[in-house]
């Protein structure tokens, strides 16, 4: 062989090409430097710091409300890790995943409540739930032997939706050998008074106990997933997700592994469902509808498909963000911060930023003068502005008495302006930007703050758009560089 290090640097070899990916990944600026410093830490520290923080939450004088969010987050993390095996690794678009969560919850409720008069010991009930949910997952995975991509998605979505319908309608099932119709699921009201978990004499009867239990389970699931990631099974799943045909030719039994992914993912979801049922002490069909499925997919895509820290962070964002935004003061802050950061990131120039914001402030005052000149009736600052931002916003934003009407007009104008701006050159966009920014804040304060539930959805949506636009590969996903 004549390949010495000497000639591998020569013309005609692929040194430059091979390093291309590295160069593209190595970002610049503060963000990248923080990232590098973080990745430089030992992995025990990297995982230990967030873990320590979550363990300390209940002892830092927090209330039940925060613990409930923590519990929801824990359940959501378990679900996300389970779904990651199926979608993130094996590339199987399973839109019926939530049905496994629901199945686990209902199965636990059936085994540990007055519904059938069964009160099985918790451990036994959980084992039965996990095994039956896994078997259900195996069955639902069977079509994946032939169906892939969109077709599998449609088939599993159908099953997922059917599950909810079945749970709602199975409150009066007529078995041929019985005289009376039987109530299996409690219909739309679900099953209530489900037993709490009780293991080895210890009853999980407080939010704190469930919170700690979920921390343990999430840590175990994370460690297991991390070990699987680089193992023969993890590699086999990721290979078949990349190219199922090539995987087969490389000794990988793709059918068996797809079914294994479905089965294992379903088992984890079943476990999460059982815990959910006992935390809630009840199950209701509406929990397991589409919004939950969409949120969980948003979480794993947001974090970066197939990346473990990504899945965890994505799930955390999708659970905590909507909760934070329940409070109008927070969403107000968040809106302004996102708007300002977004603008700075768009401008990418420290010279333009002050000019644009100065323009924006000026336009606000000019608008005030115009509104006053026309004689539009208005509210005083004290009448509408709340929170720490009140003095600033109160004197800058003109708050008309007719919030709904004028707000609606502003909203339409804003949508038109943004749509129109996307067609313009960067230069013209920057000239118009101060006006559009003011219009956005005006619309937000005048109209959208009136409807907290809408603002919450809008903000979450906007944040997702911004995040995905800046990092299309997800927060922790690796950017894909094709050599053309």
């Amino acid at each position, binding site marked *: 062989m004549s390949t010495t290090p000497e000639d591998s640097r020569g013309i005609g070899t692929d040194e430059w090409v091979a390093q291309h990916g590295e160069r593209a990944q190595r970002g610049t600026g503060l963000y990248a430097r923080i990232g590098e410093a973080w990745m430089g830490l030992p992995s025990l520290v990297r995982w230990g710091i967030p873990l320590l923080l979550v363990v300390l939450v209940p002892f830092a004088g927090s209330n039940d409300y925060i613990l409930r969010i923590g519990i929801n987050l824990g359940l959501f993390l378990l679900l996300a890790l389970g779904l990651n095996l199926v979608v993130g690794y094996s590339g199987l678009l399973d839109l019926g995943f939530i049905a496994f969560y629901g199945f686990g919850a209902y199965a636990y409720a059936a085994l540990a409540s007055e519904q059938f008069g069964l009160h099985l010991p918790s451990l036994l009930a959980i084992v039965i739930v996990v095994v039956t949910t896994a078997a259900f997952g195996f069955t639902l995975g069977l079509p994946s032997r032939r169906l892939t991509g969109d077709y599998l998605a449609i088939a599993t979505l159908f099953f997922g939706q059917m599950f909810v319908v079945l749970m709602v309608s199975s409150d009066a099932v007529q078995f041929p050998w019985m005289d009376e119709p039987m109530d299996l699921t409690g219909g739309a009201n679900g099953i209530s008074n489900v037993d709490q978990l009780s293991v080895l004499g210890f009853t999980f009867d407080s939010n704190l106990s469930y919170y700690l239990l979920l921390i343990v389970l999430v840590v175990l699931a994370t460690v297991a997933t991390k070990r699987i990631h680089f193992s*023969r099974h993890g590699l086999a799943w990721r290979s078949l997700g990349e190219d199922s045909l090539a995987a087969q030719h490389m000794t990988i039994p793709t059918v068996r592994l797809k079914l294994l992914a479905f089965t294992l993912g379903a088992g984890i979801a079943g476990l999460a469902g059982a815990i959910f049922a006992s935390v809630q002490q009840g199950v209701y069909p509406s929990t397991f509808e589409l919004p939950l499925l969409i949120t969980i997919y948003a979480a794993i895509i947001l974090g970066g498909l197939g990346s473990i820290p990504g899945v965890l962070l994505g799930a955390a964002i999708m659970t905590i963000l909507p909760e934070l935004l329940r409070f109008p003061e927070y969403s107000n802050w968040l809106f302004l911060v996102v708007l300002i950061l977004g603008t700075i990131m768009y401008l990418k120039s420290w010279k333009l930023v002050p000019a644009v914001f100065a323009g924006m402030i000026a336009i606000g005052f000019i608008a005030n003068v115009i509104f006053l000149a026309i004689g539009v009736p208005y509210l005083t600052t004290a009448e509408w502005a709340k929170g720490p931002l009140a003095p600033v916003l109160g004197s800058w934003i003109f708050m008309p008495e007719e919030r709904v009407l004028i707000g609606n007009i502003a909203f339409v104008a804003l949508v038109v302006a943004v749509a129109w701006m996307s067609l313009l050159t960067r230069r013209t966009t920057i000239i118009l930007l101060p006006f559009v920014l003011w219009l956005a804040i005006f619309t937000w304060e005048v109209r959208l703050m009136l409807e907290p539930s809408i603002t919450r959805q809008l903000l979450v949506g906007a944040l997702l758009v911004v995040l995905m636009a800046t990092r299309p590969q997800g927060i922790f996903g690796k950017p894909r560089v094709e*050599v053309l």
Partner: protein
Amino acid sequence: MMSGSPESESNPTPALELIDITKRFGGLTSLDALSLAVAPSEILSVIGPNGAGKTTFFNVITGVYTPDEGDVLLFGESIRGVDPHKVARRGVARTFQNVRLFQNLTVRENITAAMYGRTNASLFDIVFRTPRARREERENEERVLDALSFFGTRLQGYRLDQPAYSLSYANRRRLEVARAMATGASVLLLDEPAAGMNPKETQEITEIIGRLRDERSYTIVVIEHDMHVVEGVSDRVIALDHGVKIAEGSFEDVATHPAVIEAYLGRGSAARK
């Protein structure tokens, strides 16, 4: 270049044998009563114009298609209609004409993934890191370096942890060969391994194919359009046209065979030499 003496006389069981294989796609007969045998540690080249049925020939062996008629024997045992992953486990690995790597996996992961069939750690072993899982991990690591050592420094060092999509075209082809080796197969089917390579790289891959046989005694079937490669590596050459074997023998015999010349010239594309 290579010594052209197949060991078929000393070893009666061929590594690979096709008996009267016919494969039809609708009205089109891609392979027509094709019979041939490859001796252990022999390098057989398959040539033929586009659409002659060369890739179909690989697909029939590896179980992508079940032949309509005939039988495929691997060391005397039938592998007709056996699933691709089982064929691979029984010792036949291939590369693809259009390179089908696991794009988002690194070089190391691509090769390790192909060792699935020769490792046994269960999910339990993996999650609890039992001695078996650790031992296999170490063995895999050695096998990765071993497979890559065939390609000099080209795929080593920092490249081990680069995703396959970031590799140059020639390196992707090399990685595909390394991945096939990692399955533990004894028969390698290489579909146009030198396609898209420059003359220097072509020369290099020709040498590597020879060394695979000489140093590791692989049985190798190569589909190749580049006549330099065919001349360089082959113990024996067969030519296909319309799924029919039209010539068989040494490179010189086949390259000058009237039917072969006609098959190429008749379609307006002469054999490149």
